[in-house]
């Protein structure tokens, strides 16, 4: 894929993209370490290697726009502006976490910022966010809704059902497929008749676009055009971001990772953060001091989040029965 043009974005905004992508990476590196140290429980899926997709898309959104995520959700949360303290506290199972310790890594949500939740069920979010797209259309304020999902999810019924209804009703939607070429231990090549998920858009009469998902500018530009189209009543767009998860499916030690070593290595060389950093340097918008200052801010925020999580109490056992129903 050709390198994208530099977007029509102020240098500050471009550096902000780098800051967000680095935040996702450092957050997850820490989450992985703390998971293996037994401080975070259950299962953790890292987004490392795919940061350009969430950040590129969310940069094209406003605060009133809404997104939904998957089991691999930290990146979408951070890109939409979620609070690191409450995210980390949720991973730590604390009362101060986004879900009061009820959800964990796979279920972080912040409706206040338009983040309608990570989801433990593959394709489970696609219908929900399409309902948010319907809500945005009925509200009539120009809001859009974005569904993030994997290549694996694109083979599930809700993807097809929702693309059809969104196309028919011209819902203000972006369907963003993060094609990282694998679903758990099974390759997309084994489960897709065609290599491009975007090609399916033709069957629903909507635009289907393939972008380099590791090139944050390319993702931003595709998302921006799709957002304009959605806001102006043009209906949904399917954007397929070709990307790669740099780590195994989950952070559990010792799990099988049947991916081809040469394939993994090739994608490691296309790291989205390294790519953006290089381009910002080439454009003269970043130097060593600038990068250090960004890294320093991120590490400080992360340490604060860890301190917040560690200082927070666990829920009381009897909180288990709270919130089954609303009052």
């Amino acid at each position: 894929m050709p390198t994208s043009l530099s977007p029509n974005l102020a240098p500050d905004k471009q550096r902000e993209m780098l800051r967000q992508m680095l935040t996702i990476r450092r957050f997850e590196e820490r989450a992985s370490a703390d998971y293996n140290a037994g401080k975070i429980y259950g299962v953790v899926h890292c987004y490392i290697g795919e940061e350009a997709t969430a950040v590129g898309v969310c940069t094209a959104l406003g605060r009133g726009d809404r997104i939904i995520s998957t089991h691999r959700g930290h990146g979408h949360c951070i890109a939409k502006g979620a609070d690191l303290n409450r995210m980390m506290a949720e991973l730590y199972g604390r009362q101060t976490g986004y879900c009061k310790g009820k959800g964990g890594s796979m279920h972080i949500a912040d409706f206040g910022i338009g983040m309608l939740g990570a989801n433990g069920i593959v394709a489970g979010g696609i219908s929900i966010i399409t309902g948010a797209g319907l809500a945005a259309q009925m509200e009539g304020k120009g809001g859009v809704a974005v569904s993030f999902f994997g290549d694996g999810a694109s083979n599930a019924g809700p993807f097809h059902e929702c693309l059809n209804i969104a196309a028919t009703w011209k819902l203000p939607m972006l369907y963003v497929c993060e094609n990282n070429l694998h679903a758990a231990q099974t390759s997309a090549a084994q489960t897709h008749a065609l290599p491009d998920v975007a090609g399916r858009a033709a069957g629903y009469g909507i635009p289907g676009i393939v972008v380099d998902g590791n090139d944050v500018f390319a993702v931003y530009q595709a998302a921006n055009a799709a957002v304009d189209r959605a806001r102006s009543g043009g209906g949904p767009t399917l954007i397929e971001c070709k990307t790669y998860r740099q780590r195994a499916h989950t952070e559990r030690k010792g799990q099988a990772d049947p991916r081809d070593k040469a394939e993994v290595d090739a994608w490691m060389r296309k790291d989205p953060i390294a790519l953006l950093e290089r381009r910002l340097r080439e454009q003269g918008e970043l130097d060593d001091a600038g990068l250090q200052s960004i890294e320093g801010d991120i590490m400080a925020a992360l340490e604060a989040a860890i301190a917040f999580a560690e200082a927070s109490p666990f829920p009381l056992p009897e909180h288990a029965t709270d919130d089954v129903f609303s009052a």
Partner: protein
Amino acid sequence: MRELTYNEAALEAIAEEMRRDPKIFYMSTDALPPLLKEFGPQRIRATPITEAALTGMAIGAAGCGFRPIVDWRQVTFCFVAMDQIVNQAAKIHYMFGGQVNFPILYRAAVGGGGLVAAQHSQSPYSMFMNVAGLKMFLPSTPHDMKGLLKTAIRDNNPVISFESSRLMARKGPVPEDDYTIPFGVADIKREGDDVTVVALAWLVHEALAAAEELAKEGVSVEIVDPRTLVPLDTETIRNSVQKTGRLVIADEAGPTAGFSAEVAALVTEDAATFAALKAPVKRVCALQVPIPYSPVLENHVFPDRGRITAGIREVLRGRRSEAA
């Protein structure tokens, strides 16, 4: 006898049956490496993540003479296939007047303990027990797993194998030979005289631990493991309660309209068993909530040996006249 884990016992049963019958094939969103190695990608199929389609395809293939196995993995992943399970698999044999058979095995991991929150921890077997036309079982040991799975694969109906997440790595003796365990036959995992505990899966082991402790105080606990949920061995449960006069039901699922409610009803609606009851029946179940993530909360939600012990003590203290 050599020991296998619960999970290994399942794989052994499946491999043995697949060697015996070439009509058996396996579909799952990830292919299990040992099975793939032996049987190849035609019979061990890695599928797209499309449980609704897989569940229905199994019905079609079964109706055309094959014996499919669909591994849903977590039971929560099969909820996207509810139409195919409830409207199609369960009803089709009856609705079409018994024209052909639908020999299907669906596999699903159930229960909690993994701190993976509500969408990956559930014990919803009673939802399926409520649907006529599905057989199902839930083994507590590697031995029972192998024997029941073989029976399930040879059965000519849709059968759901519920498999306890907490027990996957647990070891136990498993005969190397080809044996089956009939459906509808409970196993008395421990004999006793003072109180009957009907327990499922992991809670069989928790009940055994509770019984061991209580034996030191001279309390004699009988533990009945139904093993199959449909058909359910009502007779063994009633006989045990008639002997002991006291009943505790332990289930990792919530109580509402659950397996435990069914057992309580089967015991109390039978005149002879009802007459033998010396105390109210006690259910020791999970709280009726989606399963939370944080360990403090998850621990609070699930029953364990401590709560079973408390339940046993309660029924030992209980009197029929209390209600008056």
